[in-house]
């Protein structure tokens, strides 16, 4: 960290801390808002707040501050999630949503490696998430394996099944590769619906998670207070999301990230300078699907059951729209985007029915007016805060 002090004197850390606090407080109110009016007010308020922030140049200050203290930003984000969760300690629904946001964010971090860096499109994200849930259902019901190992195996199975798609994805480009992943997602769902061994359309039950005798599905009693059992899953999901985040960041800030970017931007130039195109596409595809599988396993254990209907093409689209909304290639965009895309429709009942329509509209508007997303990706800085700059 000593390197950071040399150029940090100009940028103070308080704008960053203020920014994180504002987002945290906002998330808290959003999760707790009961009436439709309140939620709508919060949504409109957020937009006005954002406009005001940019108008007075505060967004830029927060961004500079965040770039100067990357570790503080990470710690702040984790602390904010923990605080928001702690305040809602007995509210099952709020914690379920928060955990869902974290797990979806993890999947989107994987998608981000796939098409944000390597340019491999994947419209079957939900299918790989589902593969994780089903793997957890089968292994946790029929084997004595420790549950954390099952989560890892779920990632492995998703990555392996994903490798079925690698050849067609490598051979075809652009739209065709997209169609192939869509077809895979639909095939996956149809296969599950007709497969009785995996429960058919009704799906399967999944036992709750248990680590070293700690039962995740029991509420936690502390004195007179009873904490929601969802807190168990929240902590685990937060850990998975945070570790994934750090690794994705490192990947981007390394020769791997560079190679993947070049593969995405210009395959001819990449080949001319020795870049093994297939290798990076396969790496990205495998890592992304593995992450989706792990997140799917935890999600399945948390909700207690899994059925083909949870993993439709529509769900894959939600994942993609989170990445686009957040800013393709920027891991920091994913968390707020996931929160917006997942929490708002849950809270605003009257848009529930139209949620897919709204997602489509949102994606179109973003692509038209802000193609880089809410938080556009920055140029690569391998070792932030270093003398190199």
């Amino acid at each position, binding site marked *: 960290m000593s390197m950071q002090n040399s150029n940090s004197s100009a940028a103070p850390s308080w704008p960053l801390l203020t920014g994180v606090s504002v987002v945290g407080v906002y998330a808290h109110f959003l999760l707790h808002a009961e009436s439709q009016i309140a939620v709508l007010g919060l949504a409109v308020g957020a937009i006005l707040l954002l406009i005001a922030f940019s108008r007075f140049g505060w967004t830029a200050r927060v961004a500079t501050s965040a770039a100067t203290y990357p570790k503080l930003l990470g710690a702040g984000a984790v602390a904010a999630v923990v605080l928001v969760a702690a305040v809602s300690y007995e509210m099952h629904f709020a914690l379920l949503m928060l955990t869902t946001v974290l797990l979806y964010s993890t999947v989107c971090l994987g998608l981000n490696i796939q098409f944000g860096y390597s340019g491999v499109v994947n419209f079957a994200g939900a299918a790989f998430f589902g593969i994780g849930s089903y793997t957890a259902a089968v292994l946790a019901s029929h084997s004595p394996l420790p549950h954390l190992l099952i989560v890892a195996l779920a990632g492995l199975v998703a990555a392996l099944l994903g490798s079925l798609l690698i050849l067609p994805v490598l051979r075809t480009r652009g739209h065709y590769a997209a169609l192939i992943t869509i077809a895979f997602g639909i095939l996956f769902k149809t296969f599950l619906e007709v497969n009785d061994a995996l429960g058919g359309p009704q799906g399967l039950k999944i036992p709750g998670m248990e680590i070293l005798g700690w039962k995740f599905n029991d509420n936690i009693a502390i004195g007179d207070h009873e904490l929601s059992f969802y807190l168990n899953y929240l902590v685990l999901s937060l850990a998975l999301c945070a570790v994934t985040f750090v690794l994705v960041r490192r*990947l981007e800030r390394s*020769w*791997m990230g560079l190679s993947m970017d070049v593969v995405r*931007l210009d395959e001819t130039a990449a*080949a*001319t*300078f020795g*870049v093994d195109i297939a290798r990076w596409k396969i790496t990205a595809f495998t890592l992304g699907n593995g992450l989706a599988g792990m997140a799917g396993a935890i999600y399945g254990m948390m909700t207690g059951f899994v059925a083909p209907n949870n993993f439709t093409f529509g769900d894959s689209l939600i994942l993609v729209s989170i990445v686009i909304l957040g800013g393709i290639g920027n891991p920091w965009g994913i968390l707020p985007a996931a929160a917006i895309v997942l929490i708002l429709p849950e809270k605003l009942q009257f848009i529930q029915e139209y949620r897919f329509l709204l997602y489509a509209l949102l994606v179109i508007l973003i692509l038209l007016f802000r193609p880089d997303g809410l938080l556009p990706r920055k140029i*690569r800085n391998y*070792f932030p805060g270093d003398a190199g700059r």
Partner: protein
Amino acid sequence: MSTILLEARGLTMRFGGVTALDALNLAVHKDEVLGLIGPNGSGKTTFFNVVTGLYAASAGSVDFEGREITRRAAQEIYRAGITRTFQRSRLCLPLTVFDNIAIGNYQHLQHGLLFNLFRRQALKRQYQENLEEACRLLATFNDKLVDRLFDPVSALTMIDRRRVEICRALISRPRLLLLDEPSAGMTHDETHELMSDILQVRQRLREAGNSVTIVIIEHEMNVIDRVTDRCVVLNYGEKIAEGTYAQIAADAEVQRAYLGSD
């Protein structure tokens, strides 16, 4: 007699009915600057594309340093020691100048997952070595470019982009550098400057024990006159003349080819 670095024998490239290279025999001598000239569509760029593995030759062979490289993958040819620039610049515009140059050194970068994710100190050392080399290369062209190392390439002027492209091709210390119309779209003065830079970098590399042979495609005849040791003239994919610039400039068939196509 100087040694032959690259030799094409009977090299032929057909696109449907078009024969872009027609049984071409062409030798590049070690340490020379060879000019490759000819009217539009005479197959110059196609020659580069076949040599660098972007196109698979329809017939004939290419040897590099005595090893056959015909129809090898582009990646393999790069590792063998041949790099190039493109007629229409092919940089990754959203990436920084450093990124664009660093990728040129792909064969010397370590790509393992564990290395990149968990051995950050070792990665940092490698990063700094590449950073220094990129700075050194850029500085030979223009000191001001060094300050722009972390600007996206899209923010650079055309001439600076060309320079970056040449640095990308040089950072891996190739033995053969193929330059496809490096002066395209530049003013007379800019062209002059760029050529001096190229010769200077080459001199510096030679002093460091990394001599590089150059094949340059150029339309500007005064550039050819100034920088090349020898020239090969193509027309309709065939070699119609070979020799020093003075020799080919006086060649009747060459004059006819140029007049005929204009």
